[in-house]
Protein backbone atom coordinates (compact mmCIF):
# COMPACT_ATOMS: atom_id res chain seq x y z
CA UNK A 1 0.00 0.00 0.00
CA UNK A 2 1.44 3.35 -1.06
CA UNK A 3 0.68 5.84 1.71
CA UNK A 4 1.75 8.77 -0.49
CA UNK A 5 -1.28 8.39 -2.74
CA UNK A 6 -4.30 10.57 -2.05
CA UNK A 7 -7.51 11.60 -3.76
CA UNK A 8 -8.14 15.34 -3.77
CA UNK A 9 -11.77 16.44 -3.56
CA UNK A 10 -12.52 20.08 -4.38
CA UNK A 11 -15.86 21.63 -3.46
CA UNK A 12 -16.88 25.20 -2.62
CA UNK A 13 -13.22 26.22 -2.81
CA UNK A 14 -12.25 23.64 -0.18
CA UNK A 15 -9.48 21.13 -0.75
CA UNK A 16 -9.93 17.80 0.98
CA UNK A 17 -7.45 14.93 0.68
CA UNK A 18 -8.40 11.33 1.43
CA UNK A 19 -5.95 8.40 1.32
CA UNK A 20 -6.45 6.61 -2.00
CA UNK A 21 -6.64 3.18 -0.41
CA UNK A 22 -9.78 4.29 1.45
CA UNK A 23 -11.59 5.27 -1.75
CA UNK A 24 -13.72 2.64 -3.46
CA UNK A 25 -14.25 4.47 -6.75
CA UNK A 26 -14.93 7.80 -8.43
CA UNK A 27 -18.22 8.13 -10.35
CA UNK A 28 -20.06 10.90 -12.17
CA UNK A 29 -23.07 12.65 -10.68
CA UNK A 30 -25.40 11.51 -13.45
CA UNK A 31 -25.15 8.01 -11.95
CA UNK A 32 -26.56 9.28 -8.64
CA UNK A 33 -30.27 8.96 -8.04
CA UNK A 34 -31.23 12.29 -6.46
CA UNK A 35 -33.85 11.96 -3.72
CA UNK A 36 -35.56 14.16 -1.15
CA UNK A 37 -33.12 14.94 1.64
CA UNK A 38 -33.34 12.60 4.60
CA UNK A 39 -30.86 12.74 7.48
CA UNK A 40 -28.54 14.68 5.22
CA UNK A 41 -28.59 12.13 2.41
CA UNK A 42 -29.22 13.89 -0.92
CA UNK A 43 -29.22 10.82 -3.14
CA UNK A 44 -28.22 7.19 -3.63
CA UNK A 45 -25.67 5.46 -5.79
CA UNK A 46 -26.55 1.98 -6.96
CA UNK A 47 -23.36 0.30 -7.91
CA UNK A 48 -20.97 -2.42 -6.76
CA UNK A 49 -24.13 -4.38 -5.88
CA UNK A 50 -24.95 -2.02 -3.00
CA UNK A 51 -27.01 1.08 -2.24
CA UNK A 52 -24.71 3.85 -1.10
CA UNK A 53 -25.96 7.03 0.57
CA UNK A 54 -24.67 10.22 -1.04
CA UNK A 55 -23.84 13.42 0.85
CA UNK A 56 -23.12 16.97 -0.32
CA UNK A 57 -20.81 18.95 1.91
CA UNK A 58 -20.57 22.72 2.16
CA UNK A 59 -17.50 24.81 2.83
CA UNK A 60 -17.91 24.36 6.60
CA UNK A 61 -18.03 20.58 6.07
CA UNK A 62 -21.69 20.72 7.02
CA UNK A 63 -24.36 18.74 5.18
CA UNK A 64 -26.21 20.59 2.45
CA UNK A 65 -29.93 20.27 1.78
CA UNK A 66 -29.56 20.86 -1.93
CA UNK A 67 -26.86 19.83 -4.36
CA UNK A 68 -24.94 22.83 -5.71
CA UNK A 69 -24.85 23.02 -9.52
CA UNK A 70 -21.05 22.73 -9.63
CA UNK A 71 -21.02 19.23 -8.17
CA UNK A 72 -19.98 16.84 -10.94
CA UNK A 73 -18.30 13.86 -9.31
CA UNK A 74 -19.03 11.30 -6.65
CA UNK A 75 -16.23 9.87 -4.53
CA UNK A 76 -17.22 6.61 -2.89
CA UNK A 77 -15.51 5.89 0.41
CA UNK A 78 -14.99 2.33 1.55
CA UNK A 79 -17.30 1.67 4.50
CA UNK A 80 -19.36 -1.08 6.10
CA UNK A 81 -22.04 -2.16 5.41
CA UNK A 82 -22.00 -0.06 2.23
CA UNK A 83 -19.76 2.63 0.70
CA UNK A 84 -20.59 6.28 1.39
CA UNK A 85 -20.52 8.91 -1.33
CA UNK A 86 -19.36 12.53 -1.26
CA UNK A 87 -20.16 14.89 -4.12
CA UNK A 88 -17.48 17.26 -5.32
CA UNK A 89 -16.78 19.77 -8.10
CA UNK A 90 -13.39 18.40 -9.10
CA UNK A 91 -11.37 15.33 -8.22
CA UNK A 92 -7.70 14.48 -8.75
CA UNK A 93 -5.22 11.80 -7.83
CA UNK A 94 -2.19 13.09 -5.97
CA UNK A 95 1.16 11.59 -5.06
CA UNK A 96 2.44 13.57 -2.07
CA UNK A 97 5.99 12.36 -2.51
CA UNK A 98 6.18 13.31 -6.18
CA UNK A 99 4.53 16.66 -5.54
CA UNK A 100 6.80 17.33 -2.53
CA UNK A 101 3.77 17.83 -0.31
CA UNK A 102 4.37 17.56 3.42
CA UNK A 103 1.26 17.57 5.58
CA UNK A 104 1.48 18.66 9.21
CA UNK A 105 -0.38 17.12 12.10
CA UNK A 106 -3.04 19.28 13.70
CA UNK A 107 -1.78 21.20 16.71
CA UNK A 108 -3.04 19.53 19.90
CA UNK A 109 -5.47 22.40 20.61
CA UNK A 110 -7.20 21.64 17.30
CA UNK A 111 -7.14 17.88 17.66
CA UNK A 112 -10.72 17.58 18.86
CA UNK A 113 -13.04 14.56 18.74
CA UNK A 114 -15.69 16.20 16.53
CA UNK A 115 -13.44 16.89 13.56
CA UNK A 116 -12.60 14.43 10.78
CA UNK A 117 -9.50 16.50 9.93
CA UNK A 118 -6.22 14.98 11.06
CA UNK A 119 -3.64 17.01 9.16
CA UNK A 120 -3.25 20.30 7.32
CA UNK A 121 -1.35 21.07 4.17
CA UNK A 122 -0.65 24.14 2.08
CA UNK A 123 -1.61 23.28 -1.48
CA UNK A 124 -1.67 25.84 -4.31
CA UNK A 125 -1.58 28.67 -1.76
CA UNK A 126 -4.67 27.34 -0.06
CA UNK A 127 -5.18 25.42 3.15
CA UNK A 128 -6.03 21.81 2.42
CA UNK A 129 -7.45 19.35 4.93
CA UNK A 130 -6.49 15.71 5.21
CA UNK A 131 -9.09 13.29 6.51
CA UNK A 132 -9.00 9.53 6.76
CA UNK A 133 -11.93 7.75 5.14
CA UNK A 134 -12.74 6.14 8.49
CA UNK A 135 -12.90 9.53 10.22
CA UNK A 136 -15.16 10.92 7.49
CA UNK A 137 -17.54 7.97 7.73
CA UNK A 138 -17.72 8.48 11.52
CA UNK A 139 -18.23 12.22 10.96
CA UNK A 140 -21.11 11.62 8.52
CA UNK A 141 -22.76 9.30 11.01
CA UNK A 142 -22.41 11.97 13.71
CA UNK A 143 -23.63 14.99 11.73
CA UNK A 144 -26.43 13.17 9.92
CA UNK A 145 -27.92 12.27 13.33
CA UNK A 146 -27.73 15.92 14.38
CA UNK A 147 -29.28 16.81 11.04
CA UNK A 148 -32.29 14.61 11.69
CA UNK A 149 -32.70 15.98 15.24
CA UNK A 150 -32.60 19.55 13.89
CA UNK A 151 -35.17 18.58 11.27
CA UNK A 152 -37.70 17.89 13.99
CA UNK A 153 -36.94 21.00 16.05
Amino acid at each position, binding site marked *: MNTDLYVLLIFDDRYLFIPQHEVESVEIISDVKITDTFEGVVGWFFGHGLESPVYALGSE*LSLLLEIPKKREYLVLLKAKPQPIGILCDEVENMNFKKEFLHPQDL*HVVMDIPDTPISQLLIYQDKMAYICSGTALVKYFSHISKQFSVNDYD
Partner: protein
Amino acid sequence: MTEDIAKSSRAWLLNFGGGLKAAVGLHEMSQVLISPTLFDVPTMPRYCSDVVIFQKRILPVLNVPNMLLEGKKVIIVNTKVIGVAIYQDETTESANYGSLFLASMPESIIVSDEDVCDLPEEQKYWEPFAFTCFSYHDITVPIIDLAYLFSEEFSAVKQGIQ
Protein backbone atom coordinates in the same frame (compact mmCIF):
# COMPACT_ATOMS: atom_id res chain seq x y z
CA MET B 1 22.63 44.94 57.64
CA THR B 2 20.64 43.42 54.78
CA GLU B 3 18.16 45.27 52.67
CA ASP B 4 15.19 43.73 50.88
CA ILE B 5 15.47 44.44 47.20
CA ALA B 6 12.37 43.83 45.13
CA LYS B 7 13.12 41.65 42.10
CA SER B 8 11.87 42.91 38.77
CA SER B 9 11.68 41.38 35.30
CA ARG B 10 10.66 42.39 31.84
CA ALA B 11 7.49 40.97 30.37
CA TRP B 12 5.10 41.44 27.48
CA LEU B 13 1.66 42.79 28.26
CA LEU B 14 -0.79 41.25 25.81
CA ASN B 15 -4.16 42.77 25.00
CA PHE B 16 -6.50 40.05 23.73
CA GLY B 17 -9.50 42.35 23.27
CA GLY B 18 -12.77 42.11 25.14
CA GLY B 19 -11.07 43.68 28.14
CA LEU B 20 -8.73 40.72 28.61
CA LYS B 21 -5.08 41.40 29.29
CA ALA B 22 -2.32 39.08 30.46
CA ALA B 23 1.45 39.02 30.60
CA VAL B 24 4.03 36.51 29.43
CA GLY B 25 7.78 36.34 29.84
CA LEU B 26 9.90 38.42 27.48
CA HIS B 27 11.34 35.29 25.83
CA GLU B 28 7.89 33.79 25.26
CA MET B 29 6.86 36.09 22.41
CA SER B 30 8.78 35.03 19.34
CA GLN B 31 7.40 37.53 16.86
CA VAL B 32 4.43 39.69 15.99
CA LEU B 33 2.82 39.28 12.58
CA ILE B 34 0.93 42.22 11.11
CA SER B 35 -1.95 41.37 8.77
CA PRO B 36 -0.76 37.84 7.91
CA THR B 37 -2.88 35.60 5.70
CA LEU B 38 -5.19 33.58 7.89
CA PHE B 39 -6.82 30.32 6.88
CA ASP B 40 -9.99 29.07 8.49
CA VAL B 41 -10.31 25.42 9.42
CA PRO B 42 -13.85 24.06 9.37
CA THR B 43 -15.30 21.98 12.23
CA MET B 44 -13.09 23.70 14.82
CA PRO B 45 -14.35 25.47 17.95
CA ARG B 46 -14.62 29.23 17.44
CA TYR B 47 -11.67 29.93 19.74
CA CYS B 48 -9.25 28.11 17.42
CA SER B 49 -10.80 28.09 13.96
CA ASP B 50 -7.94 29.89 12.21
CA VAL B 51 -4.36 29.01 11.39
CA VAL B 52 -1.42 31.07 10.21
CA ILE B 53 1.83 30.12 8.50
CA PHE B 54 4.96 30.95 10.43
CA GLN B 55 8.37 29.72 9.26
CA LYS B 56 6.72 26.89 7.30
CA ARG B 57 4.77 25.81 10.37
CA ILE B 58 0.97 25.85 10.39
CA LEU B 59 0.07 27.37 13.75
CA PRO B 60 -3.33 27.63 15.42
CA VAL B 61 -4.41 31.20 16.24
CA LEU B 62 -6.16 31.24 19.60
CA ASN B 63 -8.93 33.72 20.23
CA VAL B 64 -8.55 34.06 23.99
CA PRO B 65 -11.79 36.01 24.68
CA ASN B 66 -13.81 33.41 22.79
CA MET B 67 -12.03 30.71 24.72
CA LEU B 68 -12.47 32.17 28.19
CA LEU B 69 -15.71 34.10 27.98
CA GLU B 70 -17.92 31.25 26.84
CA GLY B 71 -21.39 32.23 25.78
CA LYS B 72 -20.49 35.90 25.41
CA LYS B 73 -20.06 37.27 21.94
CA VAL B 74 -16.73 39.04 21.80
CA ILE B 75 -15.74 41.26 18.94
CA ILE B 76 -12.05 41.92 18.57
CA VAL B 77 -11.53 45.41 17.25
CA ASN B 78 -8.24 44.66 15.56
CA THR B 79 -7.51 41.16 14.40
CA LYS B 80 -4.57 42.18 12.24
CA VAL B 81 -2.03 41.58 15.00
CA ILE B 82 -0.98 38.00 15.65
CA GLY B 83 1.46 37.22 18.42
CA VAL B 84 3.61 34.14 17.84
CA ALA B 85 4.28 32.46 21.16
CA ILE B 86 7.09 30.05 21.91
CA TYR B 87 6.77 27.68 24.84
CA GLN B 88 8.42 24.55 26.11
CA ASP B 89 6.57 21.27 26.19
CA GLU B 90 6.91 19.87 29.72
CA THR B 91 7.12 16.25 28.64
CA THR B 92 9.38 16.48 25.59
CA GLU B 93 11.10 19.72 26.64
CA SER B 94 11.02 20.73 22.99
CA ALA B 95 10.26 24.29 21.86
CA ASN B 96 6.77 24.64 20.41
CA TYR B 97 4.93 27.45 18.73
CA GLY B 98 1.38 28.71 18.85
CA SER B 99 -0.19 32.05 18.07
CA LEU B 100 -2.72 34.45 19.54
CA PHE B 101 -5.06 37.09 18.20
CA LEU B 102 -4.11 40.42 19.76
CA ALA B 103 -6.13 43.63 19.82
CA SER B 104 -2.97 45.76 19.81
CA MET B 105 0.79 45.44 19.71
CA PRO B 106 2.35 43.80 22.79
CA GLU B 107 3.68 46.28 25.33
CA SER B 108 7.03 45.77 27.00
CA ILE B 109 6.65 46.31 30.75
CA ILE B 110 8.62 45.79 33.94
CA VAL B 111 7.03 43.62 36.59
CA SER B 112 8.20 43.84 40.19
CA ASP B 113 7.66 41.50 43.13
CA GLU B 114 6.18 44.50 44.94
CA ASP B 115 3.27 44.55 42.48
CA VAL B 116 2.10 40.99 43.16
CA CYS B 117 -1.56 40.69 44.10
CA ASP B 118 -4.40 38.17 44.21
CA LEU B 119 -6.48 37.21 41.20
CA PRO B 120 -9.82 39.00 41.61
CA GLU B 121 -13.00 36.95 41.70
CA GLU B 122 -14.26 38.45 38.43
CA GLN B 123 -11.15 37.17 36.62
CA LYS B 124 -11.30 33.58 37.86
CA TYR B 125 -11.32 32.32 34.27
CA TRP B 126 -7.54 32.88 34.29
CA GLU B 127 -7.04 30.60 37.29
CA PRO B 128 -6.16 27.35 35.46
CA PHE B 129 -3.15 28.90 33.78
CA ALA B 130 -2.16 31.96 35.81
CA PHE B 131 1.21 31.62 37.56
CA THR B 132 0.64 34.79 39.55
CA CYS B 133 -0.89 38.27 39.22
CA PHE B 134 0.33 41.81 39.55
CA SER B 135 -1.13 45.29 39.61
CA TYR B 136 -0.32 47.43 36.64
CA HIS B 137 -1.84 50.90 36.15
CA ASP B 138 -4.78 50.02 38.39
CA ILE B 139 -5.62 46.78 36.64
CA THR B 140 -4.87 43.24 37.74
CA VAL B 141 -2.86 41.34 35.17
CA PRO B 142 -2.18 37.60 35.36
CA ILE B 143 1.10 36.11 34.17
CA ILE B 144 -0.03 33.14 32.15
CA ASP B 145 1.37 29.69 31.41
CA LEU B 146 1.45 29.48 27.61
CA ALA B 147 2.47 25.82 27.65
CA TYR B 148 -0.77 24.98 29.46
CA LEU B 149 -2.85 27.29 27.24
CA PHE B 150 -1.61 25.37 24.18
CA SER B 151 -1.64 21.96 25.86
CA GLU B 152 -3.58 18.83 25.04
CA GLU B 153 -4.65 18.77 28.69
CA PHE B 154 -6.32 22.18 28.55
CA SER B 155 -7.85 21.40 25.17
CA ALA B 156 -9.38 18.25 26.65
CA VAL B 157 -10.82 20.30 29.52
CA LYS B 158 -12.34 22.70 26.99
CA GLN B 159 -13.82 19.79 25.08
CA GLY B 160 -15.26 18.34 28.27
CA ILE B 161 -13.27 15.14 27.86
CA GLN B 162 -11.75 15.20 31.32
